[in-house]
């Protein structure tokens, strides 16, 4: 996991996260993924799905578990500071 400097990230406060997984997930997955927006960008040789949304830590870990249970490996999990 990476971060953009240290702001006021706490356990209880929701924060904006961006999660990248390989492959193409279409927008219908947004609701399942805790209401995150789903975007797909071209990768080097295959597309990458980017999930963006505001989550607290419990929701974040729940989502990571769901992605894992669907057999999706993680490329990155990033906190977007300042939102």
């Amino acid at each position, binding site marked *: 996991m990476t971060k953009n400097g240290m702001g006021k990230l706490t356990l209880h406060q929701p924060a904006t996260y961006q999660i990248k997984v390989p492959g*193409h997930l279409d927008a219908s997955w947004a609701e*399942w993924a805790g209401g995150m927006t789903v975007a797909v960008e071209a990768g080097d040789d295959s597309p990458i799905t980017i999930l963006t949304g505001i989550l607290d830590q419990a929701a974040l870990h729940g989502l990571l578990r769901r992605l894992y*249970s669907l*057999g999706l490996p993680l490329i990155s999990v990033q906190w977007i500071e300042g939102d």
Partner: protein
Amino acid sequence: MSGDLLQTKLYVPRLRPFLVPRHHLIEKLNQGLQQGCKLTLVSAPAGFGKTTLIADWGLRISESEAIPKLCWLSLDEGDNDLNSFLIYFIAALQTVEPDIGLEPLAALQSSGATNSDAVLMALLNEIASLPQPLALILDDYHVIESHSIDEALTFLLDHLPATLHLVITTRIDPALPLARLRGRGQLTELRVADLRFTHDEVATFLNQMMNLEISAENIAALGARTEGWITGLQLAALSLQERDPERVTSFIQSFTGTHHHILDYLVEEVLQQQPPRLQSFLLQTSILTRLTGSLCEAVCAFENDSPNHSDGHTLLNRLAKSNLFIVPLDDERRWYRYHHLFADLLRFRLQQEQANMIPELHCRASKWHEEHGFIDRAIRHAIAADDLEQAARLVDEHSHPAHERGEVSTVRGWFELLPDEMVRSDPSLSIACAWNLFLNGQIGAVEDRLQDAETLLAKQTTSVKNEQAGELFGKISALRVILFGTQGKPRRGIELAQQLLEYIPEANLSWRGIVLLMLGGLFRDVGNITQASRSFAEAVTILQAAENSLAAVMAVERLVRVLVMQGQLVQAVEVCTEMIDASTGPNVQGKQQVLISDMSRAIMSNVLYERNQLVDAEMYVRQGIKQAKRGGFFQSLVFGQILLARILQARGDADGANMLLQAAIKSYQMNPTQWVHKAVTSCQVQLWLAQKEFDAASRWAQENSLNAKVELNPKNEFEHFSLARVLITEGRAEPDGKTLAKALELTKRLTLSAESAGRMGHLIELLILQALALDAQGNLDQALSCLERALVLAEPQGFVRIFLDKGNPIIHLLKEAARRNIAAEYAIKLLNQIDTDSQSDTPSSILIEPLSDRELEVLHLMAQDLSYREIANQIVVSLNTVRTHVKNIYSKLMVHKRSEAVAKARELNLL
């Protein structure tokens, strides 16, 4: 066993008929077993065939009749409570070893805080002595988030005997000391890299198991696209099965060409191929964790009169036949579940397509589960439907019966599901919650809830529901009465209980009976034995009239203990006999009849012991112990073990007595309460004194800072009696007589207190102790006059053991009394019981292990001086068998020659 324990959780999953053989993995699992690994860990994401592999492995083991025996536990989110986890853990072991873990199970199912380490230790000891090893599979361990369960399992692994092998399947590595086990070579691991299908397995799967004819090139493409992920391959195969063979290649090309997520792509494909009705069935039933025909019908709101009606059961069977990710949960194919990953995906689709239906589906599921008695599920579905009113109603109605069945932790789970403000705004729920906290041992938190309820009720007084409010106020007071008792404020409890009795309608028998039962206990605690006896007796009558047999038997138990204190053995026997008669009456159901009459006899065995009727006492108490174990009556179990220890000691079987005491201590440790602790300690001191372990007894007194100046408290009476006996024993060895003087002083104080309270049974005990102290001081005349009083009091009620348990010093005094014609008749009667003790009893009581019928037969022939060869011919067995019998006879009789054996057998009336 608790009512809603789901047997389906213990069922070894049935496999689909055609499975890809995975010899290399089976081989690795077998190696782990052979090398004595403690744990097999199968850790991989969903859909890699973990459960299938282990079930297949288990089947191979059981077919080959190799060790170990296999038991299974499928975990779910509801198992995150250590108590219920352990209950299921033992229930799983019991599927192959029905008698294992009965005591630990009783401890777990009784109320109050369970000591899980002691429970685990007891369980481990039982496992260690199993004749044949077991393997226990914990399936889906990733649902466990409770640290206390991880810790319990770590403890278990640290102490695991070779007779148990654990297998864990999980999606996430569990919080267990895996590195340590790995380092010691005690861990077998299978991970994704091992589990994913190899190229050959992909080919076997597609072409042999799924009957597809796919080219090597296409197989390679599918294998690469799915990376050996079995669920992905299954979905692809299902999709291909329905397809025109000519279009297979084009499907595979488009599938391998797309960058869409495999599931996203394939589930759609598979679902689209199903008829719309089945699609909708799949989506709507995806909210269920377990499926059965009528439940599915209720959830999908099938209309029975529709023309092309097919029932839920038929649909489930059709799904099972078409391999649509459905797993049977029993042999009768009544219960199923969806494959976890498939259920996830179906729920996801349901969310996308019929989100507004979801609450309604959960409502229907809740209703079905309630109607069929699956209350826990009913509550969980009501919560999922966001129907909090329904959930609250269910909790309110069912928490009391669930508490009565000992399912305290289940009810605690329900209260965790309800929003706290909702509980706090409902008086009835607040009281139920208070009860749950009390039963769960969180005494400090109870009062807060009771005050919530009171405040709410006070606001309601103007409402029309006056009668209901009255009942709730009554419940609050009843719980407070109990609280006062446990907090050492019995007098306030008595006051409140008496108020309560004026308040409860005469007609409400059960309720009055319970309060009287509590009142009796409080009177006993303050030493007012007359009132205690009266309250208990009234409770017995009322509870029998109320047909509440279980509560009545509890009241009988308490009444008999008090009657023994009062010296009323005759009446105590009458009370027990009446209860036994009542148990065969028309108001008691079949199974309860045996329970009630066995428990009543077990209670009576306390009286039989006092009267030295040891054979009957032993028989009844053993039956009682058996019932207590089976029925989870935890305190009855410990009290039964204590009495049996005393019986064995009375027979001169010190080893047997010590063993039973240790069993009682172990049982007690699994669920420690102060009241039981006193009883166990008192028995321990008695055994020490009887076995002349005086140092141990003295140490006990010192360690508990007990001395003759101790302040008397009726609650600690047994402790004081034990102390007096210890002091007398110590005093005998001291020349200056100081300790004896103190002992005498203490017994006199105790005598005064017992006499004034009318505890005539205790008075007899104390007079005997005084006599012993006086005799040790050399004051024989006074000693005999105390003994005379004791004998006069004891005779009409038939007290015997109270004298004989004091051993040689009392025998000497009794002989002296007989010689001087002091209460001589009874003294002689007692002395005769000692002399005949070892001869009048049945042989089995003296032999630690009784002779078998065959051994008795051999013994008879040995007495006729036949040779071993002649004996063998006579009973038609081999010479070696005769030798074995003879060896056993010698060891049981503790002799080394034939002549000794015959002599001993004559002595024991065996010949």
